[in-house]
C-alpha cells in the first residue's frame, strides 16, 4: 500500500490534469489502484477528466467538486477559486471499485445501485467492503446513505462529502471513471490490503438550550417547542438573527451555533451530529442542510473560530486513535472539511492544513471542502451532518513501514 497526493492551481484544465497525473504515477512508482480527484467547478471538466483518463487509463477514478480549492499537507490550494488535487493509492493486493448512479427522483435507490456497481466492478459480489467513500449531491445525503446500507447493512463505515461549488449556485459535479455528472452519487467500495480507520467529529459543545421540533418537513424546521424556529434560535443565540427574522440567508451567521442531535453515547457521554441553519423561511422557520423530523430533540451547540482551525488536527488524531496507530503507521489520509467552516476561517486555512499535517506526521493527505459531510461516529453509526470533519487513515503495510 502506497499513497501519494499532488495538487495544482493551474487554470488550464487539460494541462493541470496531465501534469498532476504524471507526477502522481511517478511518485507512486507505477499505475495507481485508485485515484480520488477533487476539483473546483471553475475547471473544464470534460478536458480535465479526458486528460486524466488518457494519462491513467483503466484506473478507477472517483471524484467530485470542492469549494474554492483543495487541501494537502502543503497547505490550502486555491488561485482565483481554482484548484485540483489527486490522491493515488497503489495497492496491488487490494481491490477498489467505483460505481455511480443518477439520483433522479429516488436517491435511496441510487445509493443502492451505486454501491452494487462499485462492488461488481471488482467482482466482489456479496462481499462487504472494509469502507465506502461517497460523493453525492447536497439535499439527498440521508437517503443515499440509507441506500448503501440497504445493500451492505449498517456495519460498513461510510464517509465522504457532498460535492460543492464556489458560490452555492448548484454547479457541483461528480466524477466516476470517464463520466462527469451533476446529479449523481459516486461511491468507491474499498477492499484495501491494510486496515482503514475513520473519525467523524463535530467538535462543538452542547449548551443547555434544547427544544423539540414540533413542526418540520424535509430540511425545514418550522417550529421549536410550538414557536417559530428562527425566533427561538435567535433567543438561544443572544440575537444573531436580529436583522434576519423576516427571512433570507443566514449561513455565515450560524456557523458557530449549529443545532445538534444526539447520535449515540460512549461511556455515558453523548455525541452529536450537526445541522447548519442556512436561511430563515418566510414563515419564520429555519432551513437546514440536513433533514429534520418532528419529535427530534435539538440542542444549541457552540464553538469558536479558533476551534474550527484546530479541530481538524484533533479529528485526525482521533482517526489514528481508532486504530491505535501512530502517525508513522499510516500510508495516507483523506480529509473532508465543511466548506462553511472553511469560509469562516478562510484566512487561516494554511494553519488548518498545518495542524492536520502535524497530527498525521509524514503521511500525505488530500482534503476537500464540502456542502455536507458523511462519516462514521465512534459508536459505528453512519450519518450525514453539517460543520463536521471526516478523516480516514489508511494503515501502511509492514513492508512499506519497514
Amino acid at each position, binding site marked *: 500500500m502506497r499513497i501519494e497526493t499532488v495538487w495544482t492551481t493551474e487554470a488550464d484544465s487539460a494541462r493541470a490534469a496531465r501534469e498532476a497525473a504524471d507526477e502522481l504515477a511517478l511518485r507512486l512508482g507505477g499505475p495507481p489502484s485508485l485515484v480520488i480527484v477533487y476539483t473546483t467547478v471553475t475547471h473544464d471538466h470534460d478536458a480535465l477528466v479526458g486528460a486524466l483518463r488518457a494519462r491513467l487509463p483503466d484506473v478507477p477514478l472517483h471524484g467530485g467538486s470542492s469549494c474554492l480549492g483543495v487541501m494537502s499537507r502543503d497547505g490550502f490550494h486555491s488561485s482565483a477559486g481554482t484548484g485540483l488535487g489527486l490522491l493515488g493509492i497503489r495497492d496491488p493486493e487490494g481491490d477498489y471499485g467505483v460505481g455511480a448512479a443518477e439520483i433522479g427522483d429516488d436517491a435511496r435507490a441510487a445509493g443502492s445501485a451505486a454501491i452494487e456497481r462499485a462492488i461488481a466492478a471488482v467482482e466482489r459480489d456479496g462481499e462487504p467492503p*472494509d469502507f465506502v467513500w461517497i460523493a453525492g449531491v447536497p439535499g439527498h445525503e440521508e437517503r443515499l446513505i440509507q441506500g448503501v446500507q440497504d445493500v451492505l*447493512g*449498517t*456495519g460498513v463505515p461510510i464517509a465522504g462529502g457532498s460535492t460543492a461549488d464556489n458560490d452555492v449556485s448548484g454547479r457541483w459535479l461528480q466524477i466516476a471513471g470517464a463520466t462527469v455528472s451533476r446529479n449523481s452519487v459516486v461511491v468507491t467500495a474499498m477492499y484495501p490490503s491494510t486496515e482503514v480507520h475513520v473519525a467523524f467529529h463535530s467538535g462543538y459543545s452542547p449548551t443547555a438550550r434544547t427544544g423539540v421540533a414540533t413542526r418540520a418537513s424535509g430540511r425545514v424546521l418550522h417550529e421549536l417547542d410550538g414557536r417559530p424556529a428562527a425566533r427561538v434560535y435567535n433567543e438561544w443565540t443572544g440575537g444573531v438573527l436580529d436583522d434576519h427574522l423576516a427571512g433570507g440567508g443566514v449561513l455565515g451567521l450560524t456557523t458557530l451555533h449549529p443545532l445538534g442531535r444526539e447520535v449515540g453515547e460512549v461511556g455515558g457521554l453523548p455525541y452529536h451530529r450537526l445541522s447548519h441553519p442556512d436561511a430563515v423561511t418566510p414563515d419564520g422557520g429555519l432551513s437546514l442542510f440536513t433533514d429534520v423530523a418532528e419529535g427530534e430533540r435539538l440542542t444549541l451547540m457552540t464553538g469558536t473560530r479558533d476551534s474550527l482551525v484546530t479541530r481538524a488536527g484533533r479529528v485526525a488524531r482521533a482517526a489514528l486513535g481508532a486504530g491505535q496507530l501512530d502517525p508513522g503507521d499510516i500510508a495516507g489520509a483523506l480529509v473532508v472539511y465543511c466548506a462553511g467552516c472553511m469560509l469562516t476561517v478562510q484566512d487561516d486555512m494554511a494553519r488548518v492544513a498545518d495542524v492536520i499535517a502535524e497530527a498525521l506526521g509524514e503521511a500525505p493527505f488530500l482534503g476537500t471542502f464540502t456542502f455536507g459531510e458523511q462519516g462514521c461516529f465512534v459508536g459505528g453509526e453512519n450519518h450525514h451532518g453539517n460543520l463536521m470533519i471526516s478523516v480516514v487513515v489508511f494503515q501502511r503495510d509492514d513492508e512499506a513501514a519497514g
Partner: protein
Amino acid sequence: MGDGASRTGEDELREALASAQRRLAEAERARVAAEERAVELRLDLARSRAQARDAASQAERLVEGLRRITEATHVGELYTGLLDLVNETLGSEDAFIVAIDRATAGATPELEVVATSASAYASLRWPTGRLFESVLGGKTRAAFDTSKLPEWRALPTSVLERARSALHLPIRPGRDGALLVCVHAERGYFTKPRVRLAARFSGLARNALRNAELLESRLRRLEELSTPMIPISAAVTVMPIIGGMDRERGERLLAAALRGAHERGVQRVIVDITALSELELEAARALVKTASALRLLGCRMTLSGVQPRVAATLVHLEGELGARLGGLEVFGTLQDAVARALI
C-alpha cells in the same frame, strides 16, 4: 473644563467598559474552546476504555478458546470444539467445516462438509470459485449476502435464508484445504470487528488443527506399530500382541483387524498373545468382539499363545457369556496355530 473633564471621564469609562467586554468575550471564547476540548478528551477516554474492555474480553475468549482446542487429541474432537467456540465467540448461529473432497480434486474440486453444528448443512457441497480459492490461500473473507456469491448461489433457498451472511476462515491451506464457515441469518452480520476477531482466531485454529492432525497421525502410526499385521500367506495374517492389553488397546485391535481383513481380503487372522501373562476381562471381551466382527467379514480368528492366567480369564468370560468364545479357535502356541491355518 468641567465638560471636558466629564467627557474624558466618560471616554475612559467607555474604553474601560469596551476593554472589559473584549476580555469577557475572549474569556468566553477560551471557555468554549476549553469545554470543546474537554468533551473530546472525555469521549476519547470513554472510547479508549471501551476499546480496552473489548480487547480484554476478546483476549479472555481467545485464551479460553485456545485452551479448549489445544486439548483436542483427535481432529473430530477439535472440529466439534471449534464449532462450539466460534458460535459462542462470534455470535454466529451455525458453523461448519468444509474440506476439499479428494474424489473431486481434479480441475474443479468441490468442498464437502466434514463437521457441522447443524444438520441442515451436512450434505451440502460447494464448487471452489474465486472466493474459496482466496480463503484456501489463507485469507479471511466475509459475505454480506451469500446469494450473490457464485459458490453459494446454487444452494437451496432455505439454506441461503438461514445463512444470509457468512464468514469464511482458512484453517488448512492448500490442496488438502479446509475452511471454517460461520453463518448468520441477518444480512451483513459479519462486520469488520467480528472479521478482525475471527482472523485472530483462525490463526489459533490453524495451529491447533495442525497439532491435532500431527498427533492423530502419530497415534495412528503407534497403533499400527502396536498391532502389526504380518502376512504369512495370501489368506493368513498374524497379529502379535506385545505389551499389556486393556480395553482401549482391545478396541484398537478390533479396528486394526477389521481394517486389515477388509483391505487385504485375508481369511484368517491369528492373534498371538504369547507375550501376555494376564488379560483384563474388558480386553478379553474386546477379543471376542473382534472375532465376531471378523466373522461377519468372512474371516476367522484364531487365538494363540494363551498363558494360564489368560486362560482363566477366558473361561470366566465363557461362563459369563454362556457360550463358546465367539467361535474362537484357541491354540497353545503360535506354531500350532500357523500349522493349522496353512493346512
